[in-house]
């Protein structure tokens, strides 16, 4: 099997401050990789570099695109980057307000992505939007309501529907369960997990919550001060951590 996505030697500094340093990462189709570390460890910088939202100082990001073949994402034109970002990959923000249009209806939020890639038949778009609302367990009766009237958990599920409607192969997620109640988190994680399995999605997920990694990820990357200190199979790193920092993280989990 060929990797779907490969990052080599990604580095990004902000002046003298290291964002992330020489990060390598390989993702195969259908795999979920968790990037963990405390606040300021560089995980969001890394995610932004991998998804071409910021351009790293060094390194390359290779993506096996169904439409464009093997591409170095960082060398694509901005128009092509934007096209890929809306179709073959997707980005789920921690705060759904960053990923949704709050003044447009729920159905419009999902439909907009389809219109962006050339769908024009209103009836089909609405049917697809309804279908996706059901898939993310939202009440279809609320299709014409604005997301500002939704709860945080509902907004997050809507953001996921908006991102998945174009059938992406690769999803970037930044703390998708941050700021949600524990019960809402469990539901969202279960939903994500079943979508990942059904659609055979590849996911790069940034989180500080090791339970999210345990539940969703196949592999994990542990970051500290911009450096990757440990990588491996998720259950192996969680159950038999080697690096002092990973041991500290794992031993700090409170059990209820």
């Amino acid at each position, binding site marked *: 099997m060929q990797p779907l996505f490969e990052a080599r030697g990604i580095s990004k500094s902000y002046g003298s401050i290291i964002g992330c340093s020489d990060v390598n990462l390989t993702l195969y189709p259908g795999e979920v990789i968790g990037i963990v570390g405390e606040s300021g460890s560089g995980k969001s910088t890394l995610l932004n570099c991998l998804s071409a939202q910021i351009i790293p100082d060094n390194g390359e990001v290779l993506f096996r695109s169904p439409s464009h073949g093997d591409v170095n994402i960082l060398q694509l034109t901005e128009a092509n980057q934007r096209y890929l970002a809306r179709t073959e990959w997707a980005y789920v923000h921690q705060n759904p307000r960053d990923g949704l249009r709050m003044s447009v209806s729920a159905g419009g939020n999902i439909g907009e992505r389809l219109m962006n890639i050339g769908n024009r038949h209103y009836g089909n778009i609405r049917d697809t939007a309804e279908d996706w609302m059901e898939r993310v367990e939202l009440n279809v009766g609320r299709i014409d309501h604005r997301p500002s009237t939704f709860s945080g958990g509902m907004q997050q599920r809507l953001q996921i529907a908006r991102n998945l409607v174009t059938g992406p192969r690769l999803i970037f997620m930044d703390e998708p369960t941050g700021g949600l109640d524990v019960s809402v988190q469990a*539901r969202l*994680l279960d939903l994500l997990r079943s979508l990942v*399995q059904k659609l055979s999605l590849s996911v790069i997920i940034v989180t500080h919550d090791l339970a999210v990694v345990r539940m969703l990820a*196949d592999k994990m990357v542990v970051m500290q001060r911009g450096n990757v200190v440990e990588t491996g199979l998720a259950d*192996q790193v969680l159950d038999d951590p*080697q*690096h002092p920092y990973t*041991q500290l993280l794992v031993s700090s989990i409170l059990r209820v």
Partner: protein
Amino acid sequence: MFKVSNLSKSFTLHHQEKTQINVLRGISFKVKKGECVALTGPSGAGKSTLMRMLYGNYLATNGSIKIDSLELVGAEPQQILDIRRHHIGYVSQFLQVLPRVSALRVVAEPLIAAGRTSNDAKARAAEILTQLRIPEALWTLSPLTFSGGEQQRVNIARGFSHHYPAMLLDEPTASLDPENRQTVLDLIYEAKTRDTAIIGIFHDQAARDAVCDSEIEINALQQQAVVS
């Protein structure tokens, strides 16, 4: 099927005065197809540690673990995932499941991972849940609400749903009533007749005698530390 050579494991606890615990030292053994071997040794000898290493859940410090021709030590994560999907099943001591996932799905998942269709996997899951006497009314519920014995049977159903060529069993008959215990022993026996290589931890001596062909006493395999 299993070929373990000169396998060592030590844990370094960086935050507890950098204590180093040497659990396994230079262990070597083989298990053939169709053979069931019991790991024995006192509590703390490293039986479960060895099992976890054989599943790629713990890293080996030194040595080699071969499953057929596949080397587990130093393998890339996706190679280990592939070995787990197709080659080696693991029945852990306790069922670990996620909230909101039904018993039927818990049992069907390894089959889907191995490439069976969803319907096919569910049919097989239903068959083995019936065999292990889990009432059909419970299939759509999360096993987190089940009794200890029921959870253990769901765990066994999950482990035996797909026919792996190699299996690891950690106390498969613990907390089962005599009838279900016999069903589990039958499952192990059937797996052996399919040429499955099995390594197990059985504190239940009668169960061990019923299905195991030989025993491996961990302490007897440990290489003595060389004092220089």
